């Protein structure tokens, strides 16, 4: 009996309905046949239909443009000569100066716009650093196991015992340079254990899967197993947590700056602006209001984005 074609009627019948074979694993209730997809294209499909994702993505895109080219939105620069005029001190918002002036007579609108760059840089830099360090060590700990895993895991627990703010105060007061990169480094030092923990957990959950065993049985080396078979299956939770964390790091930067140990003058930061204006909050609330508003919207946008990504990547939440 050489002819043992499967019970699929004929090759021609296959292309139109590939998903009917085993239900395709997704059940959206739609009857119209559509391209069956991998986890990632499923997620993409879900995301562009999710209003939360669309709104947060638009806000973030806008913020990125602000950060990259603040000159598009204001003709003035906070670094130009004569930018602050003491005669304008604490002037209320007006039609020419929408956000008013701060105590030193600097235009709040221009400063708020220019401060976006620092916040975004801190957020992205911290996220990149924590993700790189955290996932690399998490992968090693999860795959290797044994004493190395124990040592790394206990080491990260030291960081978990330290509240972010308290740790930030401690570390930042040691390197008091007040520039953006230092703040990002401080936050990264305190933030990577969270990514480590999630990556390690995801790797542990995946490394005993049959396909890892099968890859091993077919001669894949350790590196290939780690990069091709474990990592792609473990990366989803890490993506979710880093997106949410980006917002958290931005707000942490503002908090550190507010406390006077983050970004320091002459650099600009929303946290610094809030800090400078807080003593006059009751008399001139606009000085606090506008940077706070930008900060809140930015953090909210990233957290919303993270939420949307999680909904798309975690099939259990559907």
């Amino acid at each position, binding site marked *: 009996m*050489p002819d043992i*074609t499967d019970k699929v009627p004929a090759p021609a019948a296959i292309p139109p309905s590939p998903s009917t074979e*085993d239900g395709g694993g997704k059940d959206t209730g739609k009857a119209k046949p559509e391209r069956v997809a991998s986890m990632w294209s499923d997620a993409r499909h879900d995301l562009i239909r999710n209003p939360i994702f669309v709104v947060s993505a638009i806000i973030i895109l806008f913020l990125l443009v602000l950060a990259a080219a603040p000159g598009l939105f204001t003709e003035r620069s906070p670094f130009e000569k004569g930018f602050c005029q003491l005669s304008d001190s604490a002037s209320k918002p007006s039609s020419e100066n929408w956000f008013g002036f701060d105590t030193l007579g600097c235009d709040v609108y221009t400063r708020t716009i220019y401060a976006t760059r620092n916040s975004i840089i801190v957020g992205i830099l911290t996220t990149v650093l924590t993700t790189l360090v955290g996932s690399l060590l998490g992968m090693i700990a999860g795959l290797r196991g044994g004493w190395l895993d124990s040592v790394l895991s206990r080491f990260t627990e030291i960081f978990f015992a330290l509240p972010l703010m308290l740790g930030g105060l401690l570390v930042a007061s040691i390197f008091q340079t007040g520039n953006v990169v230092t703040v990002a480094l401080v936050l990264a030092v305190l933030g990577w254990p969270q990514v480590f923990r999630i990556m390690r957990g995801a790797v542990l959950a995946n490394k005993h899967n049959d*396909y890892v065993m099968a890859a*091993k049985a077919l*001669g*894949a080396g350790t590196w290939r197993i780690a990069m091709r078979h474990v990592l792609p299956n473990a990366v989803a939770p890490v993506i979710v947590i880093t997106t949410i964390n980006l917002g958290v790091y931005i707000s942490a930067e503002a908090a550190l700056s507010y406390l006077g140990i983050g970004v320091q003058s002459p650099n600009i930061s929303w946290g610094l602006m809030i800090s400078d204006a807080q003593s006059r909050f009751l008399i001139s609330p606009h000085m606090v209001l506008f940077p706070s508003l930008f900060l809140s919207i930015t953090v909210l946008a990233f957290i919303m984005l993270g939420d949307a990504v999680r909904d798309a990547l975690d099939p259990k939440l559907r």
Partner: protein
Amino acid sequence: MTIIDKTADVPAPREAGSDGVPLLEVRDLHVEFHTREGTARAVNGVNYSVSAGETLAVLGESGSGKSVTAQAIMGILDMPPATIPRGEILFHGEDMLKMSGEERRKIRGSRIAMIFQDALSSLNPVLSVGYQLGEMFRVHRALSRKEAKAKAIELMDRVKIPAAAARVGDYPHQFSGGMRQRIMIAMALALEPDLIIADEPTTALDVTVQAQVMELLADLQREFNMGLILITHDLGVVADVADKIAVMYAGRIVETAPVHELYKRPAHPYTRGLLDSIPRLDQKGQELYAIKGLPPNLTSTPPGCAFNPRCPKAQDICRTDIPQLFPVTERDGGELAGRGSACHFWKETIHG
């Protein structure tokens, strides 16, 4: 069909142990797992051999050590908690247990390959099947992406997946169970290994597809003249495909025999029990036979013959002395090639 007619570019059949060395020989293999409850002796001195072109079926219920033996051969046991205190695994006469990790990795996939039970969970869900098939060539043969893809399509054709070129970019969940198992077979066959170990390749499939997959496996084995170790607990699957059978119980081989001999005249009470518990239409209405009791706990196997608490023929000697694998002969002492039984009362079992 047409796909099989590629015999021209198939390498000439490997000489079946012309130098007297079988393809794979397992000698006195022991595997232990150190657990909190004590040492579980999963494999206790297994001996078997496979030659090129031959199919050995390893039969046994869950926990009899058949899969652990296979994993030890492949070298994919998690070494703590498992240890191999004794034994040899000779591949082309060379002991693989003495090789370095890298040497063994090079053998895996290219010279010995394995097919797993559950093809869905054995295929990586985030990579397309074409990629996973091509990976074999890229890892072991250093082919480019494009060449690997072409090879992948060729392989999918060979295992009779319809519209291979169109489906090469599809993901594992888009295939049916039988198709997935074909892809697993294709992966194992990719580099034309000398030996394939199939660990319950049809258990997760429904009966009609089972037959097709076994047929395919047997065809390809003949075509490439490979050795095949077929691990199963399904007596029905074995009968058509295997040349010889090794029955395992509690980490030991309790009976070996050429396939039809075993069905005709089992020489071990365990094998007899297994055969008697196959449902038959002509015994409709009667109670189905079952071997009483449970398989032994591997951390505390009973003294003597491990099967003695469940054996209808057990005597005092069975509770004290572990039976060797005795050569089984005809009633008049005539030799029966390849037959052996680890039972003190094999004579009574086969002839009585």
